[in-house]
């Protein structure tokens, strides 16, 4: 009898919890604001505990990354040494290239990123799960002026955008490696606006739309955000360098592979550009 009562109660509990979960999923899918506010409040409540734990266990995670990624680090070191040698050999050419890029950006009338109001934020959580490899959480949010869709950069260039409405003191950044990430770009020196998209963790950006076959693009050419009308991104943010060019003869398009200039692994600090294309327009 007691066992029967217990089974009945546990079935009731299961149904209640399932209905609650399904309701939450539905409300979240419909961007139900009170739920989002509750989520923010709960996150803020747990946040001090988490920050403390992060500080406490951060060195353990770093040590683990050092041990498990030793081969990778060694290979990376080797590559960097080779790269350094090449860079030293071409120092003069490189400085010329930098001046050329600056001149080209000037010619295109592209404003410098430094002129746009920005907020520096710390990456507080990289991936907590095994399915969220394309986003990180930062410790700045709505109270710092951050809004959905704002571009996020590092010294190397664009790394992503703010995803969804930020919380009061935190936001989520979708990285440009996300296959669903798209950004309008142009190769410096051209005026054909094309669409680049992510290709997964550690992969390059792929330009598959918009670049006509007769546009002159070369391997090694820099690619920046186009900043065309109402683009989420201001013009001139470095995206990367063209590493491969293919041709789609049927659609008369060039297909570019672009190596991102900014590293999205092991991010510590990022800069959110408080850029609102509509405000800029007005």
């Amino acid at each position, binding site marked *: 009898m007691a066992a029967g009562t217990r089974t009945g109660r546990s079935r009731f*509990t299961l149904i209640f*919890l399932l209905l609650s979960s399904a309701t939450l999923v539905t409300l979240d899918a419909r961007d139900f604001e009170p739920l989002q506010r509750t989520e923010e409040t709960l996150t803020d409540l747990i946040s001090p*505990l988490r920050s403390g734990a*992060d500080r406490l266990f951060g060195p353990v*995670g770093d040590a683990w990354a050092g041990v498990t990624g030793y081969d990778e680090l060694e290979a990376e070191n080797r590559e960097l040494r080779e790269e350094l040698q090449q860079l030293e050999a071409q120092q003069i050419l490189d400085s010329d290239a930098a001046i050329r890029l600056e001149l080209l950006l000037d010619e295109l009338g592209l404003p410098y990123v430094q002129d746009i109001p920005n907020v520096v934020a710390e990456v507080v*959580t990289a991936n*907590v799960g095994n*399915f969220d490899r394309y986003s990180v959480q930062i410790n700045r949010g709505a109270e710092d002026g951050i809004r959905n869709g704002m571009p996020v950069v590092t010294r190397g260039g664009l790394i992503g955008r703010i995803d969804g409405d930020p919380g009061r003191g935190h936001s989520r950044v979708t990285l440009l490696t996300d296959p669903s990430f798209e950004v309008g770009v142009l190769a410096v020196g051209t005026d054909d606006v094309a669409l680049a998209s992510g290709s997964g963790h550690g992969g390059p950006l792929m330009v598959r739309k918009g670049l006509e076959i007769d546009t002159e693009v070369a391997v090694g050419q820099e690619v920046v955000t186009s900043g065309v009308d109402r683009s989420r991104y201001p013009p001139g943010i470095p995206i990367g360098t063209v590493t491969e060019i293919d041709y789609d003869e049927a659609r008369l398009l060039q297909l570019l592979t672009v190596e991102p200039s900014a590293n999205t692994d092991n991010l510590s600090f990022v800069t959110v550009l408080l850029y609102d294309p509509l405000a800029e327009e007005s």
Partner: protein
Amino acid sequence: MTMASAYSRSALFLLTALVLHMALFSDLRILGVAPEIPLAIAVTAGLVGGPERGAVAGFAIGLGIDLYLPTLFGLSALIYTVWGYSVGLLEERIFRSAWWINVLVTAAATAGGLLVYAVLGELLGEANLYTDRLYVVMGVAAVYNLVLSLPLLGLWRWSWPSLLGEEH
């Protein structure tokens, strides 16, 4: 031990597990895969406490981790609830558990839970869940949770000692 203190211990355990998962375990990756502590919590709760406690623990830890995942809020809670309940039910009716069975069940349930999460997530419109990498994630996370299941089973027994005595 009173019911209230059992609930307090459970809540403390869940909160600590959640914080530790985010601050520590999510960084301890092998082949880019972290242990699935929240899923292991739900499964081991079912194994130790039966279907009802498995469902409640799964729901609570699922909601906690959903706060930090970009997927739909409630998705983890939904799956972990079902998983905690189902494993608890199987344990009661079939396994009657030797420790090594519990450990293997935790590993298998981890792999199965991740597969269901990816499939259900994709059906609900989430991108990048069901990918070629999913099977690597399932394998590594299952092994990880197999190792972590023993301490987790012990911690659940610490949380519910007298309540378990009353029922079992």
